[in-house]
């Protein structure tokens, strides 16, 4: 099996589009990681090797990039990723209560996934909506002015 076989035709088309925009292949590394993560939810060792092969760099070099960024997932995540802001304005406005509530209800802490694969809970630096703190994001959806009371309703929207 060559390493290239693990990237789908669709992924390769998207990555090649990014490569065409930059002066050398390697410069598309982050975009390539994002593309594969978009398709597969996370970047496994196998995917990483395949991307590295396509970019013509070593897997180690690509991994040093992948592990640098907070939102490249090198471990599987659940169907829905909860990013809870743990930065200063949310701290002042009570993010710890929100965290406590999520922990109690989902029985997971930061960095963990529910056994049914429904949620992964991650801490996240400032979501840039500090005037409406505390805030969290689930997948691409932003929720602000959080209260414990609203959390149930929010979580129920994700399966």
């Amino acid at each position, binding site marked *: 099996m060559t390493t290239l076989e693990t990237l789908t035709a669709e992924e390769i088309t998207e990555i090649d589009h990014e490569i065409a925009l930059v002066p050398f292949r390697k410069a598309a590394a982050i975009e390539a990681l994002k593309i594969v993560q978009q398709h597969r939810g996370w970047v496994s060792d196998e995917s990483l090797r395949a991307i590295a092969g396509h970019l013509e760099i070593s897997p180690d070099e690509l991994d*040093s990039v992948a592990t*640098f960024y*907070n939102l490249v997932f090198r471990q599987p995540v659940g169907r829905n990723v909860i990013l809870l802001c743990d930065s200063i*304005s949310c701290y*002042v406005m009570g993010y710890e209560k929100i965290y406590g509530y999520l922990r109690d209800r989902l029985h997971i802490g930061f960095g963990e996934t529910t056994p049914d694969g429904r949620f992964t809970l991650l801490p996240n*630096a*400032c979501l840039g909506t*500090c*005037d409406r*703190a505390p805030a969290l994001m689930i997948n691409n959806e932003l929720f602000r002015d959080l209260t414990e009371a609203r959390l149930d309703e929010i979580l129920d929207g994700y399966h």
Partner: protein
Amino acid sequence: METPLTRHISFDRPPYNLSDYEKTGGYQALRKALTAMGPADITKTVQESDLKGRGGAGFNTGMKWSFVPMTGDHPIKYLICNADEMEPGTFKDRMLMEGNPHQLIEGMIISAFAIQANISYIFLRWAYKKAARLLRHAIDEAYAAGYLGKNILGTGYNLEMYLHTGVGRYICGEETALLNALEGKRATPRTKPPFPQISGLFGKPTIVNNVETFCNIPHIINNGPDWFKSLGGGSDAGTKIYGISGRVKRPGLWELPMGVTMRELIEVHAGGMANGYGFRGALPGGASTDFLVKEHLDVKLDFKSVAAAGSRLGTGTMIILDDHTCPVGFVHNLEHFFAQESCGWCTPCREGLPWTEKILLSIERGEGRLEDLQLLDMHTRFLGPGNTFCALAPGAMEPLQSALKYFREDFEKHINQKKCPWR
């Protein structure tokens, strides 16, 4: 009071599309810049307006542009909008991008023309999904209308614009680290010199400016440097997007003349402290600025006055420390952030920030010793300016050193009572 940046922003209706924007005078400045002014003229006008960078550092924008080589053989130059905005407590650029995306794009095209760049990027933080959607749409509209692409307005000038979304790392907001991120590498900062104006993205001359900075450009071109200067109320030109988060009645953002006082911002615009909460201090411009306290309430929020009071205007978005929040917990939260976001390139920062964080955590838990305060003092010096590769570590020390100065008794209380008095 004039509010050029936000006059056309209202979240009660969808943001302006191209034709709405044109109806309010949009892209007139671009026409003027490209047809009636030359690159040198634009740079000079911006320099004379005394527009200082709104990303935190406060350097004269036109001056920065003037370092880009305009003679000789430079077929490729880049212009980049730093829309990373990951400083905790800072949320102003979101409003500008979501509220009026064409204003940013017009400002970028004029700026790119001034330095004769043919490729531009918006480096947007990943969390700004709505801004990404709106910017993408606005960029497409600008291409379709001939404001981007080949032969803009028939002048022979070409510019491509790309939207790049980050994958989450605070250090990407540092100008040279951002360049590395765009090159697909780890976002560690680069040595200066060479400055990016000479050797930036892919080794080519590059200008990086903040969103709010670019948004000012069309207005300066339309109305001139004197008009821009007359907008400011303190020692700085123009208006500023100020913001407040924390326990105030109305947290939010306001465009006000540069140099509004802290008191006016808190008491008038934010409606004062929330019921039952008192004011103890504030970080005037994001997580990496020194605390100002009650005695500073009449300080004008411009670059010079805030510096004279011992802090930095930074991004102009203020985080309030109220009298129900533990100052040690507050600073611990900040240092946790900085320790986590250290890029790890240089030892003092990589090792010193987690150490600082641990000490603060133990004090907060009631397990601290008085000697710890000396250790913290030591860190504020060893991680201070000049001892690390970039400004992240010194920035991290600003809230800490000022907290040790203004709230020392709170630290001592934790240690003496062997618990957090606030919990």
